[in-house]
Every structure is written in structure tokens, then in C-alpha cells.
């Protein structure tokens, strides 16, 4: 069996899991939530099997190009979401991680899935440590991003007469909730035009447009319209399926506190050690290195802001969202748009 087929199977399970999580929230059925957990578990098992098959046939861990990186990160995200809500049911977070994993595999299918031997620069055990640890950290950042999005969503559902939330905070929350889907669509369109200008990707760029961008936008649009139409009903049942702002803030912090050391050690420190071994210097201000540093700085700012009185809450949620956008740019934007020593990972 081809591992691409296995990844497609896992995509189907992620999609079914998302539908079940949504159904469990809207119908308020606990048994549907349990089914959704099983479905996402099967999705994780099949994606992990696909990764194992690819590792076996390639002879190296599946983290050497864009296709492998996206599939690997998607699996890590699904696992992180599954484990994070092990003790406490968080259907929105789990549904979000299922959609994130689904999208990542969808985008991965645009890139070549051909197994190629490792280029000399990647033949090092540091590849395993550097990339895999950084990916685990990034999966945690993705969870923090989903939780922060939930935080903003929760904040706009708080009744207007509540004194605790200022007008400025409400506007900020609204711009995150409504702006992020637009930002995602814009980013994907940029990727579409970029790929379209690349001779190898002309045909695949159409797949991105019709297979990823349009369905996602359509789905996000429908969800937004439904949320607006049934805002009253949603607001009433918010307490049941959406944790309080304080809890969401704490969970976001936990996700970042889990991912930050992993990303810093894996992405930056192990990267420095490897760069020193391969290129003779531990730091060279290569765009990829610099963006990894920027990611570290944004999350460092998050951790410091959280300690600053009066700056936490919506501001830290926004920083967490910004941090994840920077993380994604570091991971993919730099490879595709900026020429760097890490360009071998581009396609």
C-alpha cells in the first residue's frame, strides 16, 4: 500500500472527526464527542503508519522536504490536540486541530511526494533532533493559536453590558475572529499565485485553489453566517462547550509553556550546533535562522507580557495568534519566498 493513500485515509478520518466534534457541540451529545475522539485516534494511527512506511522506504525520517514536513507537522498537531484534551474535553480545540491537520495534508499534496535520497547537508543525526523537536514545539504553538482564537471568540460572545471587557478589547477580539479567515484566504491566494508562476506547479496550483482555498473559504463563510444567525442560541450554550476566558488563557499559556522550550532547544539551539558542524559558524543571520529567532522573540514577548500587570488577556491572545503566523512564515514562507541556506527544503 502506498503511504499517500494512507495519508488520504487519515484525512478522511480527520474530516469525519471534525464533523463529529461540531455535531457534539451543536447537538450537545457526549456520545458524539466520544465517537469523534475515536475517529481522530484512527486518523492519527493511520497518519503515523504512513510516516513509518515512508521512513522505512526512504531510510531517513520523513522531514527532509516540504511534503514530508507538512504531513509530519499535521500528525504532530493531531497528536498534540488529542493528548492536550485527554483529561479535559475541549471539543472546539480538538475540532480545530483536526481541521488544521486536514489542511496541512491538503496543502502537502501540492508538493512532490517523490522519495529522494538525502542531500549531503541533511545527512546528520541533528536532522532528527533539530527538526522533530522544533515540529513538536510548533504543534504546541498551533494548539495555543487555536485556544487564543477560541479566547477571542469567547470574548465577543460576552454580553455587551459586561463591564469587564472594554470596547477596544472587543474590537480587537472581533478583528482576530473575522480577520484570521480573511488572512488565511489571502495567504493561500498568495501561495496560489506564487505556485502558478512556478513552471512545475502550474497544474497543482489549480488543485490548491479548488481543493483547499475555495472549500475552506466556503466552509468558513457558512460557519460565520450560521454563527451570526444563531448567535442567541450559541451565546446561551457557550458555558457548556467553551471554557471561561480565564481557563482559555491558562490553557494557552500551558500550550506555549510546553512548546516554547521544545522549539527553543530544537529549533534554535540544536540548529546552532548543527550549523556550526556543517557551515563552520553557529549563527549567520540566514533568513531561516533569523525568522526562527523572530518566532522565539515573539513568544518570549508573550511570556513577558503575561507577567506584566494589565497586559494579559486579549493582548496575550493576540500575541499568541501573531506568534503562530510568524511560526508558519518561518516554516513555509521563508522556504518559498526568501532565498536562504535552507532553500533545499523549499519544494
Amino acid at each position: 500500500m502506498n503511504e499517500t493513500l494512507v495519508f488520504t485515509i487519515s484525512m478522511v478520518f480527520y474530516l469525519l472527526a471534525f464533523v463529529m466534534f461540531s455535531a457534539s457541540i451543536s447537538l450537545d451529545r457526549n456520545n458524539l464527542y466520544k465517537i469523534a475522539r475515536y475517529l481522530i485516534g484512527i486518523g492519527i494511527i493511520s497518519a503515523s503508519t504512513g510516516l513509518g512506511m515512508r521512513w522505512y522506504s526512504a531510510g531517513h525520517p520523513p522531514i527532509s522536504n516540504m511534503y514530508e514536513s507538512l504531513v509530519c507537522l499535521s500528525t504532530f498537531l493531531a497528536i498534540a490536540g488529542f493528548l492536550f484534551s485527554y483529561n479535559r474535553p475541549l471539543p472546539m480545540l480538538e475540532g480545530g486541530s483536526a481541521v488544521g491537520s486536514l489542511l496541512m495534508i491538503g496543502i502537502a499534496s501540492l508538493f512532490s511526494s517523490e522519495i529522494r535520497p538525502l542531500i549531503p547537508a541533511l545527512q546528520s543525526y541533528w536532522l532528527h533532533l533539530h527538526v522533530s523537536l522544533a515540529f513538536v514545539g510548533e504543534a504546541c504553538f498551533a494548539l495555543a493559536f487555536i485556544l487564543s482564537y477560541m479566547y477571542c471568540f469567547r470574548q465577543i460572545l460576552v454580553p455587551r453590558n459586561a463591564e469587564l471587557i472594554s470596547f477596544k478589547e472587543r474590537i480587537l477580539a472581533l478583528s482576530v475572529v473575522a480577520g484570521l479567515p480573511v488572512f488565511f484566504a489571502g495567504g493561500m491566494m498568495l501561495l496560489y499565485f506564487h505556485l502558478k508562476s512556478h513552471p512545475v506547479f502550474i497544474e497543482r496550483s489549480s488543485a490548491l485553489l479548488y481543493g483547499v482555498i475555495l472549500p475552506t473559504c466556503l466552509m468558513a463563510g457558512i460557519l460565520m453566517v450560521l454563527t451570526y444567525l444563531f448567535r442567541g442560541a450559541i451565546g446561551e450554550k457557550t458555558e457548556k462547550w467553551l471554557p471561561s476566558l480565564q481557563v482559555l488563557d491558562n490553557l494557552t499559556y500551558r500550550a506555549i509553556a510546553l512548546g516554547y522550550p521544545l522549539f527553543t532547544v530544537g529549533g534554535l539551539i540544536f540548529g546552532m550546533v548543527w550549523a556550526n558542524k556543517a557551515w563552520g559558524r553557529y549563527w549567520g543571520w540566514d533568513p531561516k535562522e533569523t525568522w526562527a529567532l523572530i518566532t522565539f522573540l515573539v513568544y518570549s514577548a508573550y511570556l513577558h507580557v503575561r507577567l506584566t500587570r494589565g497586559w494579559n488577556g486579549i493582548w496575550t491572545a493576540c500575541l499568541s495568534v501573531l506568534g503562530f503566523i510568524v511560526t508558519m512564515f518561518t516554516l513555509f514562507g521563508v522556504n518559498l519566498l526568501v532565498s536562504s541556506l535552507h532553500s533545499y527544503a523549499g519544494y
Partner: protein
Amino acid sequence: MRTILHLFVSLKTAVTIICVLTVLSMLGTFVPQSLEAYQYLERYPSIGHWILALGFDDMYHSLAFQACLWFLSVSTLVCILTRWKSTSRKLFSRLQFVTEKEIKAFEMGMILPKLLTETALARFPQKKELPGSVVIALRTSGKSSLLGGMFIHIGFLMILAGGLLGLFYGVEMAVRGRVGEKVPVPELSVVRAARDADRISRTARNIRHFSPDAPILDKYRQEVEALHKAYVDGLASPAFYVEFNNLWVDNHLDERGQVKGIKSWNSAISFVADGETLASGVTMVNQPVSFRDYSFFQASWSKSYRRIVVRVDLLKDNPEWESFVAAGATFPIIVDFEIEKPRSFSWTPLQMVMQDFMPDFRIIDGRFISVSQELNNPAARIVAYDHKGSVAGRAWAFPDDRVMSPSHVSNLPFIFTFVGAEPEFESGLQMAYDPGKPMVWAGCLIFTLGLIMGFYIAYREEWLMIMPNGRILIAITGNRPAESFRQNLQALAAELNEEKNNDQETIKA
């Protein structure tokens, strides 16, 4: 002074500097770095002069970026010093400074319904009696977590200090060579002179672009001349030579033995001084070799063809052929050329030069270029000169399987056919010396330890307060959100209640 101290201690200051550093780092990846001044002015007519004036053409060495780093370093140092007092109190004398009010204010606390026995109190290693007959007891865990932040900040400072050492005293230089070549490696001071000369020259070029008569340019010129002289003198008496003994490529092969891709570029090198080989080794990507102060890393690799073999056939269609061919010559003849090296032959009075060789040639936009270094579509250009040195004719050499009209490929009475070419590798080594590295690695280690201690070990204080009226308050706090201690509080209550029940059973018995 106090205001300045407050400025450096403030978390808001730290966040602001981090944000400014983030923005500057981002700009550095979008603005092309280390171009010449005129290139910035050409590419960015409206903001080019701002880029140069602010030093953003070399962002990470610019005044703004360095100032931010210094400011952050000082802020970090002040933060370490000021926080040490509260950290050491928590570590060594927590009980001494605690107040009844503080314990009551802890978010995660509860009043126990029943009285506690002495044996339960014994579970708390630290005890103290406050004025008013209030007894407090403390049990802590994960104390190392308190040092996590300290370690992170100290590690960060050490990394910056190591980076600074490398910036001032470190050097990097490229060493390139082919098999058999010996490349001189000068002393460290000499390489530093070359590095400094480059930096000063660049600054001078930028200044000259804006004000060609600036007096400082003379000073810079003198400095560069002195440094250049030091470099030339140093190169004449090198510290040692790097000799390239062997260069080869290992390939990934498929089941049929076909090459799938490059596995490794290998350079066998020796370090030679005074005619004596002092050390030798093999460098490849991810496997450097060190000698004396320097480390050598496999950085680049190129393949070229110096010796090209062609077959020469006579074209008797050319009316002048007899004047180009020596008497008694028989064709075809196999000859070899070295690129750009003139050759004389016994079979012709002409002198011939292979001017160019393209292993994988294409015509793109009317230009002849080689798209790779593999022998996929080779083409060689040969120029013939007569005894006066004038060009007598030109010819192209292609492989046998390219069918072309002779008049299109040669205006000489000869047809040249490509037979083969010997590949020759050139290895590029990155030579580096960085005295700051040990400090950077030590900093990384401390930083990593700090991350583990600070983020993965939770510091917890379990408090027990016995009021004069016999009421018991238990509370838990630490360096995690209060909500995360809820389970610990329940566990503590259960532990103490169990203790009490045990005691009651003992009394009954």
C-alpha cells in the same frame, strides 16, 4: 539613578526592546544585506538613502540593532541582580518572611473542617509560630524551578557575550583548491587584518557615495592601506599550508547501480609547514577537521573540466585546406586540450586554443550557456591562430551523435568531434576561528537547563496554618496558575484527613 534602574528593571521595557528587535530582525530579512551603496539607491530610489544612513544595509551590525542588544543585555543583567533577592528568599528563607495575611490571600486555599493532629503537622518539615499563637508550616517541592528564570537569563547573556567575542576576535575565510594544490593559510592576526580592511573599505565606499570629500575618507584609506600591507606580508609567510590530497564524490545508488543523487563530497587534506606534514584528515559536510586555531568545514564543491579530448577530421571541401595541414599528416587524429592553454601540433602550422567548454550547453535568449556541470550535452569552442597571431578560424566541437552541417560548426578545414573530458573537482573549505564559541555553548547549556527547570518543573508551596481557635487553613501556591493547583489542594486535604482518621482509629484501639 533610581529612574534609570526602574527603566531597566521594568518588564514593559523588556517587552518593548524585544518588539523593536523583532521588527528590526524582520526588516533585515526583507532588505537585501551587504550590497554596494549604489545598488540600494538604484533598487530603492525613495528609501535607499535611509537604508544606508541607518545602516540597515548591514542590519545585524547596525547601530540600532546593536544598541537594542546592549539595552536588552543590561536590562537582563539588572533583572537578574534585582530578582536574586526575592529568589534567594524563596529558596532559603521562605518561612522567615511570610505573613499570616499573605497565606490567607492565596487563591487556592481551604479551611479544614476537623482538627489536625501533631502527626499530620509532622509531615511539614518547616514550622514557625507567629505572634498571636498562630502556627504555620510549609512543605515545598520543585525548588529548582525557581532558578529556571535565572538560568535562562544568565545563559542568554553568556550567548550574547560569546557572540560579541566572536564578532571582534573571530575570523572566517574561504580556502579553495584542486588535487595537488597547496593553499597558504596565514596567521590569525593577518586574517583579521584582511577582515578589518574589508569592513573599513565598505564603510568608506558608503560614505564616499554621499560625500566624496569627507575628511574621514583619508583616515580610512590610510588604515586600509596599512591593513592590506599587513595581509600581503602575512600571506608571504603563512602559518601553514592546506594541501588537497584527494577529492572525490560518493553517490547514492539504486538497485541497478544507477546514481540517484550525491551522498557526500569528500576532501582529503593535509596541513603542511616547513615541508613537513603535521596532520591530515578527511572533511565532508557535517564532518569538519580542526588544526591549530582553525576548523575546516566542507562548504562548497564544484566540478570543472580542464582536459578535453577531441577527434580531428580533415575537411577537404575547404579550398585552403592544404595551407592549414602539414605535409604527411593523416586523419583522424585524437588530441587533447586544456582550457585557454594554446597548443601547437605537428599536423598543422596553426596554434589552437580551446577557449570555452560547456558540459551541458543550451542556447537561452540567444546566449550559449551550460545549465549543469554534467556531460549531458557537451560543446567546446576552439580558436585557431596563424603564425602572426591573427585569428585563422573558429570551430565548435560536439559529440558524434549531434548531426550538424560542417560549415555551421567550423570555418577551418577541420571538423572537431568531442570524445571525452576528465572531470576535475574543486573543493571549497570554510576556515573558521571563533574564540567565543565555548562561551556560547556554555550559555546554551545553561539556557537549556533553565528552560527545563523553569517550564517543566513546577514549584509548589503547601501551607498549613493553625489558628488560635483551632481552625486549620491549608493553601497551595507556586509558579503556575492557581487553577492548576486545585487537584493538589484536594490531595493535600485528603492526605491530612486520612492522617486524622488513622489517628482516631489508633486512639479507639
